[in-house]
Each structure stands twice: as C-alpha cells, then as structure tokens.
C-alpha cells in the first residue's frame, strides 16, 4: 500500500461568534470539529456532504490557507501548521488548490499568462521568457490554445477558465492538490471534459487529490476513497465502491438515496429526511445527525459516536450503523 502523503489529525476549526457590548465571543461556529483523515500518495480522496458542513474549511485548513483551532496536518511528513511563514511558502510549491468558481478564481485584471505564470514568478528564478515558454507548455497540457495567453479570463468560457485554474495549480508540479468543487459550477457537457483532464493529469504527474464535491456521482467516478461529512464531523470513510454500494451511516444512505438518477425507469427508494441541517454554531448534542436520523435512539442524543473502523477499510461514526448486525435496517423505513 502506498504511504500516506497527507495525514490530518484531530483538526478543529472554530469561527468565533462575537456579540454583545464588548464584542465578546459568545460561541463558535464549529465548522470542522475534530476530523482526522489520511490520503495516500497518488490517490483521490473524495469529500462529500451538504452545503456548510465544513468541506471547504477542511480543505483550506489542510493547506493552511486558514489556521487550525486545534490539530495538526502533515503533508509529506512535515507538520504544515508548525512551519514558519518562509518554510510554508516553500512548501506551497508542493500543495495547490483548484477552486469551484470559474469566475471568481481568476483575477479578472490579470492576463491569462500572468495568472498561470504567477506561481513560477514567485517560486522560481525563471526569466520572463522562460516563464512564457512554460506557460505555453502548460496551456497545451490542459488543452488551451496558447495563442490566447495574452487575453483576459473573461474572454474564456467556464470550462476553459477552469482549465486555466488547473494550469496555475500544476505549474509548479505539486504533489498534492485540493480540488474544491472544481467541477460543480460547470455544465454537464463541460464537466466531463474537466473531469477527464484532472484524471489525465493525475495519471501523468502522479498527483494526489483531495476532491471536494457535492455531486455524488462525480465523486464516485473520480475518487478512490470517499469521506462523508455532516455538520463539521466526518461520519463515514470508505473505499468508494463499497461505500456507494453499502452505506453504513444512515446519513450517507439518505444522501445517496436523495439524488435523482437520470433514468426514469429505475425509480429508487428514497429516504426523505425531515428538517434542515442544524446550525454549526449550535450543533445538536450526541450524534449530530440524531435530529434528522430516522433510526435515532435515546443513546444517539447523548453519546457522541466515534469514527471507528467497523469493517475493513470502512470507518463510520454511528451507534447503529446500517446493515450491520444490531444496527439500523433501511427496509423498516417507509420509502418512496
């Protein structure tokens, strides 16, 4: 088995809520609350969950684009959060991020070649001409027409912009890339182009991905392993196929069932959850999912379940995992 490139230990990220006369901290938005995970070299780790559950925050904390409240992140054996600013800057060559918003992630006042060339300018001593050459090379690599490098991002379509963002991210040949909803904003017909590109690059460059998305089908397609988050907690981690075929956590099960499948004939049984996701500022006690869980029992509201490996390669944080001896049974639910 390949070694772990990224190791996340007990990461917490709280955003203080200020209130009152003295602007005192009266509470915290627990965006990420005690999450651990590891990503192996060369693999794609998919992260799914509903909006606001802390996926992006986790991604950012892993790259130390945001400080962690607690916990450590090791990339290639080095504790990112313990590095000095200079060391961190050096480290940035090895870790990169690709963003969701094809409009927002490129500075509209930078020429494409400046966007792609900026990391080179900062981290290498290349001459302007060398940078230009490299930019051309990168543009070809991601499938962009290099003759258009002196244009502004707004002249490119969403998919092309996403390619520019990818070119920027791979400019320094990083080892690890966080792709935060890298394809979510794209139309289906373009989305597949970008997915193909990412997978091609991964193969060619031996990249390791943390692939954040809420499109479960895309995550399934691209990821080797998948983690499911709910309200700042990692509730389930597992090999992709196993997890999709046989979700252990009731939330994962509900999530998977809630997704409309593009085939009218195979109408699936859907678990419709009640209510909305609670506020991360004021999460429920015990298991955070218990307020919406169809299988919730007394214990769930009191004791917080730990993420434990209950099957080989399958971790779940649930007192009564689905389809397991003594656990919850989906077939008891009234489904549609």
């Amino acid at each position: 088995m390949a070694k772990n490139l990224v190791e996340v230990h007990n990461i917490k990220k709280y955003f203080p809520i200020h209130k009152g006369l003295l602007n005192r901290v009266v509470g915290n938005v627990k965006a990420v609350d005690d999450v651990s995970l590891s990503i192996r070299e060369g693999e794609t780790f998919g992260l799914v969950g509903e909006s606001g559950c802390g996926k992006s925050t986790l991604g950012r904390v892993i790259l130390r684009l945001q400080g962690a409240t607690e916990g450590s992140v090791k990339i290639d054996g080095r504790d990112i959060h313990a590095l000095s600013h200079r060391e961190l800057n050096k480290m940035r060559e090895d870790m990169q991020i690709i963003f969701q918003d094809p409009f927002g992630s490129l500075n509209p006042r930078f020429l494409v070649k400046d966007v792609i060339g900026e990391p080179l300018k900062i981290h290498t001593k290349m001459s302007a001409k060398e940078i230009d050459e490299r930019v051309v090379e990168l543009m070809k690599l991601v499938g962009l027409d290099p003759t258009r490098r002196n244009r502004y991002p707004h002249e490119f379509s969403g998919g092309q912009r996403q390619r520019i963002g990818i070119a920027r991210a791979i400019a320094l040949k990083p080892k690890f890339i966080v792709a935060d909803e890298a394809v979510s904003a794209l139309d289906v017909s373009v989305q597949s182009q970008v997915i193909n590109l990412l997978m091609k690059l991964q193969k060619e460059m031996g990249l390791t991905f943390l692939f954040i998305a809420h499109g479960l089908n895309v995550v399934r397609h691209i990821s080797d392993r998948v983690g499911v988050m709910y309200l700042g907690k990692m509730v389930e981690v597992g090999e992709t196929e196993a997890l999709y075929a046989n979700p252990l956590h009731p939330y994962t099960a509900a999530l998977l069932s809630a997704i409309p499948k593009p085939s009218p004939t195979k109408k699936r049984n859907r678990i419709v959850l009640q209510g909305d996701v609670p506020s991360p500022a004021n999460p429920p006690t015990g298991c955070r999912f218990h307020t919406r869980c169809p299988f919730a029992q007394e214990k769930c509201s009191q004791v917080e379940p730990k993420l434990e490996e209950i099957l080989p390669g399958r971790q779940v944080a649930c007192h009564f995992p689905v389809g397991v001896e003594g656990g919850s049974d989906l077939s008891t639910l009234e489904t549609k």
Partner: protein
Amino acid sequence: MAEKLLEVRNLTTGFLTDKGFVKATDRISVSIEKGKTLCLVGESGSGKSVTSLSIMRLIDYAGGIILEGNINFKGQDLAAKKQEELKEIRGNKISMIFQDPMSALNPVFTVGDQIAESLSLHQNKSKDEAWKEAIELLRMVGIPSPEIRAKQYPNQLSGGMCQRVVIAIALAAKPELLIADEPTTALDVTVQAQILELLQDLKEKLGTSILLITHDMGVAAEMADHIAVMYAGAIVEQGTVEEIFSNPSHPYTVGLLQSIPGFEGERGGELYTIKGTIPALGNLPQGCRFNPRCPHVMDKCRQVEPGDIKIGSEHFTKCWLYEDKEKAAAALGKGESIHG
C-alpha cells in the same frame, strides 16, 4: 391526446444589446397537457428562464422583447395581451416559483403577509380569512408550526422553508399551471428531495400542470412526463420522458446523457465528452446550431437549420440525421430501431 393547457408556438424572445438584437429563444414550440409535467432541460444560458418569463410575460420587465409567436393559454394568446390584462392570469391561473427562494421573498414583509396578499388579490378574501388560509397553505407545504412562521420574516427562515413559502404563494390561488424555474438548484440534496417530493404530492392532489425547468437530468427523469431539451435558444428534441431517456435522438441529448458519470458500473474511466462549448447567443453558427460540436456533422448541417422532425408519436428532434433513419441508426451506433 390529452387536452392542451398551454401551447407555445414559435416563441422568439430576445434582448437588444450593444451588439444588436440577440435571440434568447428561437421559435420555440412546446405544450403542456392538463395535469402533466413538462421539463425543460438544457445547459446554463440555453434560454430556459427566458422561455418561462416570456410565458408569464415578465420578460417585458427584464428588458426583453417577444418578437413573434403565440402563447396560447386556454384559448387566450398571452403574447398579445396588455400587461394590465395579465394580472387576472398571473398568480391566479399561472403562477411561478423561482430559483433562489431567499431572494424571491420580499425581505420587509412577513411570509404570512406575502401569502395572504396573493389570496386577497385573486380571491377577494378579507384580511382575516386570507391570513387563516395562508396558515393553512403553510401547513400544506409542510412547514411546522405555521402560526408562528407566518409572522416571521424571510430572513428568519431556512432556504428550504423559504422555497416552501414560495410554493405556498404560488399555490395560493390554486393555479392551473405552475412554472418552476430550477426550484431546487439552490438547495441541498436532502432538501431538494423534500421539495421534489412536495411538488409531486401537490401535483397529484391539486391536479396542477407543471412546467419544470432544470438542468439536472436526474430531476427531469424523476419529475417529468414530457421533456424538452434546449440548446442555445432552441428546443432540439422533445418527447415523453421514456422516449428521451431510452431513445435519445439528437446528438446533443445523447452526449448530455452520456457525459454524466453514473452511479453504477465502471468508475474512473474516461467520460464521454461533447467537445467545445455552447456558442454565444449573438454568435450562432450557420445551419444547425450544434454543428461545431456535433460528432456526426454533415455538410448540410453547416448550411441549413433543421426543423422539427417527428420520430415518435410525441417525439421530435431537430437533426438532419433523422431525415434518413438508417443513416441515423448507423451514425449513432444503435441497434434499436427508431420510432417512426
């Protein structure tokens, strides 16, 4: 064939821009039967919203112009009416739900007020009655403790609840047609499931026809009776939901369906892609508007725009391939026959 509630014929709507007139919809013809759901699918910018706004004649306020075409709603041509005459129909016979529920509600009125307004506008209800009924409506769309919620402002509700309120407003006057423009896109998957569920329920209970706009083929598959696929302002294919999914005909529809990664089977392989991107509306290619991206492009495609070609009882496609069915079958590599 069931009775047609709405019949749109040759609707062309556009905008006057710096670069001249741009047609956002180009001779669109769709129809909705009583009690059925028509899904309009297509990628961003293909003109779905413009179509819906045109039907409501709200496009006038967005700076658009209906250039030609009829919008027949129960024998009246909405396209030919004056704005003042439409208030009888809007919100009463046809109502609408928009994409972003949070911004679709007026932030300075309580949600109860906003529902009640709809009631008093169209049903001459007294204030009290309207309020009572508003609470009933809230209950109907599944909002817990509606008495309390009715007195709250939109910002005090979650996105899912807001969307329910918007639906309640739309249903207040018991419309015959409900137009829903991407009603779940802004919502979480689990909440989306709730809303779709609700729409299905209501449709069954009230017998309302629905024009559902979405770009999610999954949603369309789940909700639709009929589907119309839009590409760059034109409807390139339409038919029943079964026909579209089991027998997609237009190369665009085919590509669209194939490029979605599936939930079963092979992972990690290369996905099918449609090369290139949607052309800008002001800059459509000559001939078939899909021709630069089409894997089966022929000379004719580059010169003459295809019209609707009937390939099933209710299945139409705009593709020259279907002029000649064999050729189509060969090109698409499909063994099955094509309805004719």
